[in-house]
């Protein structure tokens, strides 16, 4: 026998033996001690499937939902959200007051709160955070890094970009258990805005120790040591470990001021494929995932899983680009509005419980108008309007995205098909232009003028019309293709209202105006839902998806 074959045979024998040993040991270990402890852990572990990896754990730099979800467990802001609603509620600040001019806010801080590294949470810590944000410069002023800070506070202490020098932040003053934030000009949404996780309080010690604002070796501040390994907050859970691409583990914070959470451990696991998330839940490998596809809702609840709908804080609309001469005609826009059977679109393509939309903001949001012009489903009227406009048989371009699923637009392709059918029924021809969501479609809508009808929308990051009307209609954009100075001024005025009530009124007016101008048609407020294993109890959904998991319990 040749030496080679002998060697090969020995190898096979060894491999076989190893395999056998492995099988035997694994069988026996089922009764062993390790399995028992693992079993014990199982009941104490909540496994959640994320659709993608969190970008960063320093909430100041991120706005994506997966990062935010984790940040919500580790960090808390001065303001929190009343569970089950979008309402601001006391957080690390137990109460607050503002001056009439809307330029000064005083927060009463919660006592005896410590960051998880032992640093006390106090007024100095609060000011440290505010000053940190305000002093960011250089690459940290990039739109993708400090996106939300720029949105709310509009500028930094210094900047090369003149547009970023006119911020609303003026200063922070610590007064014992209270802290006062002063502004350069009024901003009506400050309180709801401070509930956004980007403005959560972080431990000054940890921020300094791990150089939170230093780009570090990776050259990206979102990937520095602090943001990937040492996020330190006051929240109910502590960061434990992050195996990139695989899982992220959190532990219960034993010294949480609100009491130690009932669940010991949270594992966030990354499953990008929607069907795979569904199946992992069905087979018991995970305990929950977000954004259930409309098609799966019935099956899941039928099989005993919890499908928890969130009150929608979003809008799906059909935009009508007025750079297109056909759509510039208000009669055509109105005709299209009357041609849409929103109820049918909802029942055919959107999750159960979704309501048709009448305004560009969802009902719970401050600024929702009492009554606006409505356009009922009326094909006959639509046809008549088209005839008046001489648009019967004309071809309208219809842009829609493919291969994407947004919380406000779970299946744009289906929605497109449904709308197309209705438009054709009233005598319009549709030239469908499907494009991949990112970047082609977004570019087509946001940067180019050659789009017609299109599907888009948005989800609110706070309970403020700012995140809807403020962003959509604050200035001239190629998206809508119209210029209406009066409208833009009204939006600006609403934005800088002195308080919430004033802001609500002003935005209600804007919303009313909009429905007369009809730049697009609000279609629906799709209900995003979350699926949970039946063994999880105590989950309270939040319209802002800002759930904190310290209320959860695991049965059995």
């Amino acid at each position, binding site marked *: 026998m040749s030496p080679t074959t002998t060697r090969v045979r020995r190898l096979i024998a060894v491999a076989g033996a190893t395999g056998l040993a492995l099988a035997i040991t*694994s069988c026996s270990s089922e009764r062993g001690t390790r399995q028992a402890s693992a079993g014990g852990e199982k009941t104490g572990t909540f496994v959640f499937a994320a659709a993608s990896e969190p970008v960063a754990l320093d909430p100041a730099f991120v706005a994506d939902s997966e990062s935010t979800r984790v940040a919500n467990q580790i960090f808390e802001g001065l303001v929190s959200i009343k569970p089950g609603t979008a309402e601001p509620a006391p957080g690390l600040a137990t109460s607050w007051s503002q001056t009439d001019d809307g330029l000064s806010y005083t927060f009463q801080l919660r006592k005896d709160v410590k960051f998880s590294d032992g640093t006390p949470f106090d007024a100095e810590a609060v000011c440290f955070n505010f000053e940190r944000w305000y002093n960011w410069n250089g*690459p940290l002023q990039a739109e993708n890094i400090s996106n939300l800070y720029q949105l709310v506070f509009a500028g930094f202490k210094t900047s090369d970009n003149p547009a970023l020098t006119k911020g609303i932040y003026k200063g922070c003053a610590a007064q014992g258990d209270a802290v006062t934030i002063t502004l350069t000009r009024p901003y009506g949404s400050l309180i709801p805005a401070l509930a956004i996780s980007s403005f959560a309080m972080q431990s000054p010690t940890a921020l300094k120790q791990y150089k939170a604002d230093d780009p570090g070796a990776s050259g990206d501040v979102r990937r520095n040591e602090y943001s990937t390994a040492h996020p330190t907050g006051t929240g109910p859970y502590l960061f434990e470990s992050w195996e990139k691409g695989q*899982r992220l583990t959190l532990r219960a914070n034993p010294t949480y001021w609100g009491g130690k959470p009932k669940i010991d451990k949270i594992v966030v696991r990354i499953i990008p*494929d929607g069907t795979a998330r569904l199946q992992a839940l069905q087979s018991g490998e995970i305990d929950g995932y977000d954004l259930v596809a409309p098609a799966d809702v019935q099956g899941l609840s039928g099989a005993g899983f919890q499908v928890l709908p969130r009150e929608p804080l979003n809008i799906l609309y059909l935009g009508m680009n007025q750079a297109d001469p056909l759509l510039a005609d208000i009669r055509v826009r109105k005709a299209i509005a009357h041609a849409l059977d929103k109820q049918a679109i909802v029942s055919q393509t959107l999750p159960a419980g979704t309501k048709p939309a009448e305004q560009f903001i969802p009902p719970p949001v401050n600024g929702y108008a009492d009554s606006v012009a409505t356009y009922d489903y009326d094909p006959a009227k639509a046809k008549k309007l088209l005839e008046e406009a001489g648009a019967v048989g004309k071809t309208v371009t219809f842009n829609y995205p493919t291969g994407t699923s947004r919380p406000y637009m779970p299946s744009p392709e289906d929605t497109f098909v449904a709308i197309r059918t209705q438009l054709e029924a009233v005598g319009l021809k549709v030239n469908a232009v499907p494009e991949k969501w990112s970047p082609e479609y*977004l570019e087509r809508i946001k940067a180019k003028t050659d789009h017609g009808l299109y599907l888009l929308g948005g989800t609110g990051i706070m309970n403020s019309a700012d995140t809807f009307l403020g*962003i959509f209609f604050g200035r001239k954009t190629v998206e809508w293709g119209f210029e209406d100075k009066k409208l833009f001024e009204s939006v600006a005025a609403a934005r800088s209202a002195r308080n919430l009530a004033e802001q609500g009124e002003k935005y209600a007016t804007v919303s009313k105006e909009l429905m007369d101008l009809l730049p697009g048609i609000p279609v629906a407020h799709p209900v995003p839902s979350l699926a949970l294993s039946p063994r999880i109890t105590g989950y309270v959904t939040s319209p802002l998806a800002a759930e904190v998991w310290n209320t959860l319990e695991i049965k059995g």
Partner: protein
Amino acid sequence: MIAFVARRLALVVPVLFGLSLLLFVWLRLLPGDPARALLGERATQEGIDRVNHLYGFDRSLPEQFLLFLERLARGDLGSSIRTGQSVVGSFFERFPATVELAVAGLGLAIVVGIPLGYFAARRKGGPLDHLSVGASLLGVVVPVFFLAYLLKYVFAIRLGWLPTAGRQDVRLDATHPTGLYVLDGVLTGEWDAAWDALLHLILPAMALGAIPLAIIVRITRASVLEVMNEDFVRTARAKGLTRAVIRRRHVMRNALLPVSTTIGLQAGALLAGAVLTETVFALNGVGEFLFTAVNHLDYPVLQGFVLFIAVIYAVVNLLVDVSYAVIDPRARQR
């Protein structure tokens, strides 16, 4: 032998250079603006310009290429636009998952395919032959991701025998010194972790291994049939050797030569298949990352990963050539 390896290596270098040039030009031809992909639906033009400047997309193409080469020489392939992670880092973070999957898939294909091909050839025209030829045809014609879904549906959902996704039950607190989970379990003595990781590998390996399996069966069968007709096998029989010796020393050792070449070529298909399989089974490997990169036009990642995959492909084929030379003394001289 060393000269042989050196010669083969020397041939790889120009290919890789050509590839980087090609990739570079190619990806810059991509429509769309990665900055927009990054900043999302509410991006402003200033923001986009700033990102473009940050990543050097506003420079001239030759300049960008030189920059790219210079960084490449330092082993720096840039960082992902989407996540900011370094391309090299994220590749190696995810590489173990892909290695494990590819090894399992290919291993399955080899371990099942070679004996199946052999016995199909021995019983040519028999039921086993028809079965394996038929199965190997099916393996090639069913789209990989469809097969993956079917396998998952049947074995994980309907029958519940195997896990649906992931590499390991995340509730197990296993330690991962190497990132190859099965091996980790064995190394650390956490047998339940190893076993669990193994269970997680079965379905993905089946889905990914289907095409190589089909091809290996077919090549082995054809190759065995051919070798069995060779004069030296007749000589071996004329010597009165036992069947076992004939099979092992005379038939298989020769029949495996074309099979080993095929295995090398399959490595490429395997890496491509991993893009599909990893996505379906949420394995968070290189393939899945690449899939996401394609969807987000993450240039640096696309460029870096395709380059890496080409290198791996080249290395695997180099190894195959070397192993070929080990089996076949004639090849050593070439």
